[in-house]
């Protein structure tokens, strides 16, 4: 057993911010990050000179990194982080920033993730995503993540009996949720028939299993609880977090993620069980990954996610509110911003500021991240449990 970890007492998360997404943008990642950061600071009623910590996640900043952004955006900070972990960047940025604030290395950390989406951005990114992808997966049909996840989905369906309708239910209910989120890119209802009739992409994956790449950005602030109270800011506590990379490398194909290794630690640190969670925001780049998270985060046993999906209602008013903003499947995937989407929504939920997507009485939320199909599987996984201000 590893050493017992310290909690995050005295540290809070505030000012969840979304720069409304666009399908394509002629702006740069710098512009999107500036926009989200500006809105975030404004909502916390502070200025750029008040933050002394800065954390950035983005795929399209090249040739810049976080440090170039400090000059570009006029920030002078004493703590700086760049988190190139794709869908896990939200949880990872949060837990790093929380320790920085807790230990006094920084007083206020602004965490931002976002990307632009030019007409050709996605195609350009695929061939050079990682060395193993370049060498060993992209040359095989150049299907990108669609093809990689199609293989995982095919295997999962054969092994655990998941049906297309089960994945469809996840997508359809998230669309219902998205219709209540004014920032969601998808504005039209999606029926099961629509889902099943979706254009084939990479069998068994069809159109509505895939996220839509968009331009956009997400942000939040990590600060001391006393400062949040002094500023009268709605704030969320961090009850527990986990992170694990390259878990279960001996598995012949991915059927589980790093959550399964760390899950006991997560609930022990948060001193709760899966039953205590009011809202769950999983990383939903493809519905099969949502099912793996349901299992690995302890909401059902391995292989039982298909029946769990059948027996649960994932809508905002349902018995298992899930991806209440619509998730990436319906709100859009703003590059690295996709790794923040569930987290900003979870902060809103537990602080009672989610507006139209608010789950009644939401006190505790679990958010999980997943990222980086380096070759044949996602390497990064993380999760965090947040609670409202008065816990």
């Amino acid at each position: 057993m590893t050493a017992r970890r310290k909690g995050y007492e005295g540290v809070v998360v505030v000012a969840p911010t979304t720069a409304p997404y666009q399908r394509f943008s002629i702006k740069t990642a710098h512009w999107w990050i500036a926009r989200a950061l500006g809105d975030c600071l404004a909502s916390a009623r502070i200025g750029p000179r008040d933050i002394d910590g800065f954390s950035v996640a983005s795929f399209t900043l090249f040739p810049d990194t976080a440090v170039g952004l400090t000059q570009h955006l006029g920030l002078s900070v004493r703590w700086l982080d760049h988190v190139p972990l794709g869908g896990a960047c939200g949880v990872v940025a949060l837990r790093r920033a929380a320790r920085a604030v807790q230990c006094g290395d920084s007083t206020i950390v602004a965490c931002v993730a976002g990307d632009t989406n030019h007409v050709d951005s996605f195609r350009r990114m695929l061939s050079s995503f990682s060395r193993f992808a370049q060498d060993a997966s992209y040359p095989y049909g150049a299907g990108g993540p669609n093809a990689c996840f199609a293989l995982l989905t095919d295997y999962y369906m054969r092994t655990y009996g998941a049906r297309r309708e089960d994945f469809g239910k996840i997508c359809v209910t998230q669309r219902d949720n998205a219709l209540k989120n004014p920032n969601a890119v998808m504005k039209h209802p999606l029926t099961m028939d629509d889902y099943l009739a979706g254009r084939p992409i990479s069998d068994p994956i069809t159109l509505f299993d895939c996220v839509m790449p968009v331009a956009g950005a997400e942000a939040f602030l990590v600060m001391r609880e006393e400062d949040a109270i002094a500023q009268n800011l709605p704030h969320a506590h961090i009850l527990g977090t986990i992170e694990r990379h390259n878990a279960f490398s001996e598995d012949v194909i991915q059927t589980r993620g790093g959550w399964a290794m760390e899950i006991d630690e997560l609930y022990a640190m948060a001193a709760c069980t899966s039953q205590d969670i009011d809202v769950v925001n999983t990383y939903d780049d493809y519905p099969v990954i949502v099912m793996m998270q349901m299992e690995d985060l302890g909401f059902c046993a391995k292989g039982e996610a298909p029946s769990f999906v059948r027996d649960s209602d994932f809508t905002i008013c349902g018995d298992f509110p899930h991806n209440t903003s619509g998730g990436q499947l319906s709100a859009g995937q703003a590059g690295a911003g996709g790794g923040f989407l569930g987290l900003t929504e979870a902060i809103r939920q537990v602080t009672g500021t989610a507006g139209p997507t608010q789950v009644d009485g939401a006190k505790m939320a679990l958010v999980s991240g997943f990222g980086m199909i380096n070759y044949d599987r996602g390497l990064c996984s993380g999760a965090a449990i947040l609670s409202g201000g008065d816990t």
Partner: protein
Amino acid sequence: MTEPLKPPPKKNPQRRTRAPTRPSHFRSRAALGLAAAAGEGRFMLQVCDRCTAIQYPPRDACSACLSIDLSWKDAKPTGTLIAETTVQTSTNTYFRERSPWRVGTVVMDIGPSVIAHIHGDITVGEHVRLVNRLDRSGQAVFFAMPVHGTDNPEDDLQMREMTCDPKFRRVLITDGRNPNSVAIAEAFVKAGASIIFVGESEAWRPYPNQSALRGVDNVEILPLDVTDTNSVQVLSGEISGKTDILVNNARFIRPGGLFDRRDVVFAQQEIEVNYLGLMRLAQSFGPVMRERAADGTNSAVSWVNILSAYAWTNEPDFGPFSASNAAALSISQALRADLADSGIRVMNVYVGPTEDEWHQPLPPPKVTPGSLARAVVTGLRDGLEEQFVGDIAEDLIKRWRDNPKVLEREMIANRGRA
């Protein structure tokens, strides 16, 4: 069951010829080791020198023990297909034009899971055999084949993209006067080539296989003298637009070391045929073939050079001849680079002493026209880049790879042993 390939319809010259595209050719330096193996038809993986762990994808350090000493070794290529997908929409033009395209996850019997192209005759759960092939980008990919016998496996459309199969293709053999021309033409007939053009220089001057060549099915004899730029250009104007496979077997050879000759007359002839002849052919036929690399069932697909293995190291008793072949080997690499964009494969077939009058006093083993011809066709079917035919050529390349400087001394020591 693979649908047998149908003969291509006659080309409509008014229709646009499909432009060649290719899969992604970007690879790390480590991954290029796989391409080197594929060029010779070998299935190899990196193995850790310290802990023997087998690695995939190619990398720079062992994922089991962190050793930085990894060696490419021949590996058992069998496994089980555990998942598949059919890519219906791709971001890459090459695959877009050829979709739907099947790929799958194969768990190898020796451990690693690999993503591979999969043959149409296999289904999930089946035991498969992986082959390491060059795709149209010239880079290596794995292809999962059925282990049980099936009908026309080579006609699978995805498989055909990884090979240079002569079936329904049109071939130019550049030198009818070479004693190997009949055997090569016959091998292409047997492999299903539709037309075999054979170049003939100085037709008025009889040669031993002249009538035999005219007796081979589908052979069309055309005037070609590779030492004459005009002759090459004229023939190119006539048939380069329908040359799918070019086999350059033109060769000028005279025995003798450097001091055995008193002048450079033979050497000039050797350079004219063996080096400049290849260059003339390349400059006339290459640019046209390159444009036709995606032209359907009988697209331009391969360029074959038959070279002496002594292109790699000088055989002093054939010193100037070896030098002309070294020049040809070098320019073949330039040709390969210029054809790379199109996906046309340059295959060099290296032979030791051949069974002909110029090697008459040498003892066996010597390469017969028949075994050379079989190697050419097999190499095309396997999409190879380098082939060493016969015991002497194979022995030579082994020694060269072990230590070229040691081999140079061995060539001196072995001198005149015949």
